[in-house]
């Protein structure tokens, strides 16, 4: 049942994306990010994400993001993303954006978890077609990993639940 839901969801998403492309309302952004760790254990994240948007209006976009996030483990996030431009387009256009979803853990002995990242930023029309993005916000990434050790007395294992909150700093570009 889970697989069916997953398959149908992917199919629907794909179909809608193709239809959206026909209307030429698609845009993409790529972000390179890091952050200032706020939680314990501390871990400075490194993220490389790509977001595909469906431009619902000139100021409001919704889409899907994915990429790679590196914490103690490498994660692959998949999230819904909404973006709202706070003013009409200028050379510098402020915007608010929020991504919310789930990160997969491709490595063994790791479970993925909740991903949430609200940010505010500014689009800089530095080039004719492309815009440079600067954003700051918050990023929450949860996941679980197995910890194991062995000594002369025992083997021990436990599941560690990590919840990394950080001040997110991102630079990117629209395509």
């Amino acid at each position: 049942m889970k697989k069916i839901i997953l398959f149908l969801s992917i199919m629907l998403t794909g179909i809608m994306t193709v239809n959206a492309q026909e209307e030429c309302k698609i845009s993409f952004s790529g972000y390179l990010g890091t952050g200032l760790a706020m939680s314990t254990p501390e871990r400075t994240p490194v993220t490389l994400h790509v977001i595909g948007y469906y431009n619902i209006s000139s100021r409001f976009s919704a889409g899907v993001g994915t990429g790679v996030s590196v914490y103690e483990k490498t994660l692959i996030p998949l999230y819904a993303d909404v973006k709202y431009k706070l003013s009409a387009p200028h050379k510098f256009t402020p915007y608010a954006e929020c991504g919310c979803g789930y990160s997969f853990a491709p490595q063994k002995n790791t479970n993925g978890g909740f991903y949430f990242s609200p940010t505010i930023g500014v689009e800089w029309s530095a080039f004719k077609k492309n815009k440079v993005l600067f954003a700051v916000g918050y990023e929450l990434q949860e996941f679980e990993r197995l910890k194991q050790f062995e000594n002369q007395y025992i083997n021990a294992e436990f599941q560690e639940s990590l919840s990394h909150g950080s001040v997110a700093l991102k630079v990117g570009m629209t395509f």
Partner: protein
Amino acid sequence: MKKMVLISSLLLLISSFWSCNKDLVEYSQGDIKVKIVEGDEWLHDFPLFLGINKKNPPQVAIWLEDTNGNYLTTIYASYKIAHQAWQSANGNRRKEALPCWCYARGVKYADGLYLPTKDQPLTDAMSGATPRKGFDVKITPNSNLKKFIVKVELNHSIDFNDSYPKSAKEGDPNYSGGKEGSGQPALVYEAMVDLTTGQKTFNAQLIGHSSSDGTSGTIYKDMSGITTAQNIVKQITVTIQ
């Protein structure tokens, strides 16, 4: 309509992933599960700023002793004490956090304290972020270890009450590390495990509290003055699978 379908499908897609998570710890016959069931006071308010509080889980250490009370090995210790990663402690090393475990372990560091340091933390694989709810640890003892004691020590920071107030001064019998200290001292539970009897479940009993100022590893049986700290855990069991 298309937008609705798109959004719905995305939500379905994302929500379906949560159910994909698996238990990372798998138990086989003979393995031992040390299970801590959280009580009503598992999470404790810790002030951040502007009156905003964060709910913090307790510091926890689990270790083994032989039947004579000699320390054998740590099974688990919370990340903050294991790595000296306290937040907002103003330099307090928090020796009053889990003194029974620290003294049982018996490793003295350069500053004379029995606490791991940032430079010499506990083995990383033995430490973890304390979960926001109960958790369990799997242990597989070697073939020679048939009788042993599982000890668990738990403590909240700034868990002050009338008997262990913030205002207590160093040297007072109820001093617990000052305003960034413990308040109510750490509590210690133990379960005597004997693998030769065929018994499958051993319930840990509360055996006392630790030194409130962290200056010794003594366990005090007098529980007067300990209030909410007794509800940090509901139950601790050691179960043979």
